[in-house]
């Protein structure tokens, strides 16, 4: 795997199983960074400057919306896409207006997630 050219995806999700699932669903060919709380997510985003952040809204320590707010101010939208993933489907509008590119409700469909990832990363098909 060529980590130098592969796109970087930061997964912020406190549930270990879901992180694994997301990783497996999106598939090989990406460089994954994982955070299980909001503070770690911000730290890793600053360090790695990922192309895509998949962000859960229910995170320990810092809520997903706070993380989203901070990241959106630090990372230019053109460089980093943010996809919010949450069981709080009524938070969709709040997430989009805070700067998220897309909202994926939990539980998610594997095809839906891969399609969205491909779309926001500008790849025709995964």
């Amino acid at each position, binding site marked *: 795997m060529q980590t130098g050219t592969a796109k970087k995806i930061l997964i912020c999700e406190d549930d270990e199983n879901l992180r694994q699932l997301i990783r497996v669903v999106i598939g090989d060919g990406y460089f994954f960074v994982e955070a299980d*709380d909001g503070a770690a997510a911000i730290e890793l985003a600053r360090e790695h400057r990922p192309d895509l952040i998949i962000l859960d809204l229910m995170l*320990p*320590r810092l809520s997903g919306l706070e993380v989203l707010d901070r990241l959106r101010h630090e990372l230019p939208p053109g460089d980093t896409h943010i996809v919010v993933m949450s*069981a709080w489907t009524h938070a969709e509008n709040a997430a989009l207006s805070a700067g998220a590119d897309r909202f994926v409700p939990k539980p998610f469909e594997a095809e839906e997630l891969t399609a969205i990832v491909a779309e926001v990363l500008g790849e025709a098909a995964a």
Partner: protein
Amino acid sequence: MKSRSLSTRMIAASVVLAVLVAAGFGILIHSVSTLDEARDREAHSKDVTVATVVLEKLVLDLENGLRGFVLSSNQRFLQPLNRARAQLPGRFRDLERLVSTNPVQTRRARSLRTKINEYIRDYSVPLVDIAQDQPAAARTAIAEGEGKIRTDTIRESFAELLSAENAVAAASAASARRQSQRAIILAISTLVACALLIVLFGLYLARSIAKPVRATATAASQLAAGDLSVRLAEDGPGEVSELSKAFNAMAAELERSRKDLETQNARLRESERRKSELVTIVSHELRTPLASVLGFTSLLLSRELDQGDQRRYLEIIDLQGRRLSALLNDFLDVEHLEEGRLEFARQLIDMGTVVDEQAQLFSGQSTRHTVDVELPEKPLPVRGDPNRLAQVVGNLLSNAIKYSPEGGIVKIVGERDEQFVRVSVRDEGLGIREDLQKGVFRKFFRGDAGASGIPGSGLGLTISRSVVEAHGGRMSFKSAAGKGSVFSLELPLAPD
């Protein structure tokens, strides 16, 4: 002081008025009858006067007849004399009957009769006899004036009787006039007093009925407008005070029931809020494991995976399925605990074993936490439900790990004394803010946990405490924000 009733006062006032009016009319009637009496007495006096005058005329006839006969010797003059003599006794009876009520006049009448009888017996009869035989001697006798002296005396008596009768009449008329004047003044005063009393009574009624009725009406309007705190003064006469008291009781009852309703309403709103919170929590808590289950299942179905991956994913699905099932069990437990339908086994168990097993289970779940176990050598026997008590210990350990996200030492201690077995779980985590501490055992209580993203249903401690209490024990905790918490449970020691 209990005020007399309004009806008593009104009846009393009416009685006073009636007595006054009756007295006024009584006085008027009395004065009218007094006037009647005076008129009767006047008429009586007139009768007496007439009878006296008639007698006087008879005496005059007697005198004139005697004089005429003596002077003329003409028998013709004897006629009026004899007629007068014949009529005199009847007339005297009339007079005496009329004056019989007045002793003085009666005495006068008798004296007059005596004088007249004496005049007839001693003077006029002898003189007529003399005149029959010796007219000259009789004439001389008349000339001597004895007859005149006698008749003058008689006339004086008549005058006396008449003037006395006039005086009686005048006196009684004057007294009647005085009495009637007094009666009129009294009657007018009584009527004026009645009128005044009626006016005062009206004013009193206006004050004691109209005023409180107006106050009651105003208060009722305020009440109708929603001001349930309005109250009336409870003074005033009996019925008014009763009305005010009844009104106040009604207002108080209304106010109380509105407060009850408001309290009930607040409770309902709170319960509604918690219920919707529950729906949100349940849906979120179920979705996370469900996302794993569905996601890995669709992966297994749609992709070619090697056996190792397949097994790993199936294990995840299994674990998450159990997590879902455990969550549902929590919800059901709470339901059952609330309805008192949860049943417990009563086995003899060693809490030491339970603590050991749970500690092992949880120490494998987190790499950032160390679970220290401290148990005495002797067993910790209690009587109860091993699964439920394991659930409680597990819940305390799970909380200790969840609420110390930075990791650290979780220490679980089992100990016993003569009466109790005690299990404490200490962590070095977030702790609980003092203002949130009283809600810790409440259903769905999450404190700051929800906002800081720590998962949970807020049911664990509720269930744990209910289970411990159902075993005759109790739960307690100590906590300081930022310094961690100690949760303890105490169960009765089972006799060996």
